[in-house]
């Protein structure tokens, strides 16, 4: 449990950097040396193997593509899909303790059994949701001719295969959250469209002459525009 925060910080900083270095080691170095195409192909497979199921850079590309997709159903579909991640993490967290507390309860055996079954079903359902999400993201990447974010050897996760289920869970322990990425993309879009520009932002960009014109207009009208102070007004 100790040093969780430190580990999380290190991983956030290092994951993409490490994956870039792996790509240089296995693929770029071979290309630069003029290696046989078969060797480059093998190098790419070695690279995928070293990623251990989660390709952070590919994941970023896929998320970019989803956020820019003209079909809103795509965004809706994956928004729902991603809801299974926090569900699963909450179910999985402290699992042993939850089951132990249930078993120590004074309730009759059949009630305890039903409670454990219910807990188990909820966790399994959330886990299935995560696996569906990973498969769907991979399919979407392939349709868009992007590298797949979950490059597992078997291609598609099988919900009935315990090893695949374990692999999917393991990937989650190393997975990139979305918040920073999504907010960055949306902020950039707003800036490009000018929609995020407040009146205060416009005033800041004006020349003195333009400012005085606005001041004169406002003074004559005595109907000052409501200031939208960006983040403060939300």
């Amino acid at each position, binding site marked *: 449990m100790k040093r*969780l*925060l430190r580990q999380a910080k290190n991983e956030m900083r290092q994951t993409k950097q490490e994956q870039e270095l792996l790509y240089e080691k296995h693929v770029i170095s071979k290309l630069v040396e003029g290696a046989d195409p078969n060797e480059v192909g093998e190098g790419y497979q070695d690279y995928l193997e070293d990623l251990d199921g989660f390709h952070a850079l590919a994941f970023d590309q896929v998320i970019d593509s989803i956020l820019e997709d003209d079909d809103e159903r795509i965004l809706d579909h994956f928004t729902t899909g991603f809801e299974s*991640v*926090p569900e699963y993490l*909450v179910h*999985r*967290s402290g699992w042993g303790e939850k089951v132990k507390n249930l078993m120590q309860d004074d309730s009759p055996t059949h009630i305890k059994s039903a409670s454990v079954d219910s807990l188990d079903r909820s966790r399994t359902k959330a886990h299935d949701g995560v696996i569906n999400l990973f498969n769907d993201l991979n399919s979407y990447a392939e349709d868009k001719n992007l590298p797949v974010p979950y490059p597992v050897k078997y291609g598609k996760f099988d919900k009935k295969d315990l090893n695949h289920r374990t692999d999917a869970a393991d990937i989650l322990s190393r997975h990139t959250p979305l918040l920073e990425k999504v907010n960055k993309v949306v902020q950039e879009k707003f800036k490009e469209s000018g929609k995020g520009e407040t009146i205060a932002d416009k005033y800041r960009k004006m020349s003195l002459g333009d400012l005085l014109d606005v001041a004169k207009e406002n003074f004559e009208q005595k109907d000052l525009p409501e200031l939208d102070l960006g983040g403060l007004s939300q």
Partner: protein
Amino acid sequence: MKEELLERAIKEDVSKLKDVLRASYSLKALSKLEVLEIATKTNESLGYKLFNDLYYPRLVSEFSLVSRAVAKDAIENNN
């Protein structure tokens, strides 16, 4: 964010961090106010200030850190 407070939150009741996790894995962008509300409500629910700096960019980063830490603990320490 203090490491011991994060560990305490994870050990005591991860469900109190659910809104932070949902925000971290959402494809729909949240407004600054929504992020701020989640941070303050989470602090209230926990009974201590896990998020002691309510500056938006810092909250975005700390939400990600919390999510990663929860995920690591959930998968590595719970079978």
